[in-house]
């Protein structure tokens, strides 16, 4: 067996460039839809897990436990081959199945991040808000969530990167994602170095871009709430 570095043929990648470009779009689409949906879902699940009402708490808890406790690959297959056909009588295509599975899965992980973020805000904040006559929903929206959000930014960023990579699992339902493009080329030429290296590099480029975006957001939401650059952190004495 030889690994023939000198005989690398990227021309065959070039021949399939449309497939790879489409793969990038599909991967991006799945990731963005799954992630944004997962944030909204995670917000409800996370707050549900903080509810004192048992009929809210337990469904949210079991949902999160299920989606965190089973492999995403299994969830994708279940949704694509069982859940969606049972509900609609037929498949809705790989994209709907894939996006749904990623969204439902991401929602469970985000729920834990959001719950922990909300819980990390000092109790005194809620008490001050409530003592001013704010109903709990108003206090949550105006006082707790804006503060909790900052603490959620780094872990939610990690979640985005993780989801981008995990989205490659939809390849099993023949979704035309980035990994699938590599598989097609590999099958067509019976060569593995070029297509999978290409796929890896393209994923790396995507994670790089996402990392930059996350770093920017994190910087915007860094420690201090004071908008100006030159700020006094703590000043004593009378005004």
């Amino acid at each position, binding site marked *: 067996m030889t690994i023939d570095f000198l005989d690398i043929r990227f021309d065959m990648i070039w021949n399939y460039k449309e497939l790879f470009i489409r793969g990038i779009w599909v991967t991006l689409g799945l990731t963005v839809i799954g992630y944004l949906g997962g944030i909204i879902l995670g917000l409800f699940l996370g707050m549900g897990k903080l509810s004192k009402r048992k009929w809210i708490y337990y469904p949210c808890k079991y949902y999160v436990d299920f989606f965190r406790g089973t492999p995403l690959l299994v969830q994708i297959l279940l949704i694509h081959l069982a859940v969606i056909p049972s509900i609609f009588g037929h498949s809705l295509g790989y994209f709907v199945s894939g996006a749904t599975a990623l969204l439902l899965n991401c929602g469970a992980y985000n729920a834990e991040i959001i719950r922990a973020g909300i819980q990390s805000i000092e109790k005194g904040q809620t*008490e001050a808000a409530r*003592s*001013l*006559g704010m*109903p709990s929903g108003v206090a949550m929206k105006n*006082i707790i969530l804006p503060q909790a959000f900052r603490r959620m930014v780094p872990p939610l960023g990690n979640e985005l990167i993780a989801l981008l990579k995990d989205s490659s699992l939809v390849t099993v339902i023949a979704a035309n994602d980035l990994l699938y493009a590599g598989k097609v080329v590999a099958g067509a030429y019976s060569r593995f170095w070029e297509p999978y290296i290409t796929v890896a590099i393209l994923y790396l480029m995507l994670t790089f871009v996402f990392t930059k975006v996350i770093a920017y957001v994190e910087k915007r939401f860094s420690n*201090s*709430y004071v908008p100006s650059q030159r700020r*006094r952190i703590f*000043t004593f004495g009378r005004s």
Partner: protein
Amino acid sequence: MIKIEGLHKSFGQLEVLKGIDYEVKEKEIICVIGPSGSGKSTFLRCINLLEDITDGAVFINGLKVNDSGTNINEIRKDVGMVFQQFNLFPHMNVLNNITISPRKIRKMNPKEAEQLAVELLEKVGLADKAKSFPEQLSGGQMQRVAIARALAMQPKIMLFDEPTSALDPEMVKEVLDVMKQLAFEGMTMVVVTHEMGFAKEMGDRVLFMDEGKLVEEGTPDAIFNNSTNERTKAFLSMVL
């Protein structure tokens, strides 16, 4: 104005308030003193239902606070509270800290709310800090903003839970001065405090609490100078 009847509060097995009866009249300044852990904060927090009440009742202007038919948010509009740890909203500047509840809860329009905030900031001597953020303020300034924030709801009663205990000594006076001014203006106040000077000077009544009970109640003179109660005397001998 505030009527407390047979107030009991337990945290699980721990009984923290063991039956308290008291009535606060309009414009009275009530100072609550007592050793740490005696239940002073819990007593105060039961008044605006930050702690739910195990047994007994609290009435504010005749409305029972711990009644499922009572909208507690309505009552809280009339009861301001100032905390030991200030609890300012760190993500908002001073102005927004003050205007948020009038805007969201009293449905005041932003212009009016801002004007009110400016007036209140002048009152607490921080007119120049409207655009500052809490992290840019000293402890004394933060507490004065917290008082202004509570006043912005135009409450009829103010509750203070050791408002100067977290402050460096040199900042205590600026906060007490604001409280005194408020007292002179006729605010009804319940003040948990370790500032015996304030209690003596400003209190209409002084309440001494120990181990979840209201041990003794009277004018500052009766409590500080003429108490015959052993526990009161023991406590005062330690703090005075």
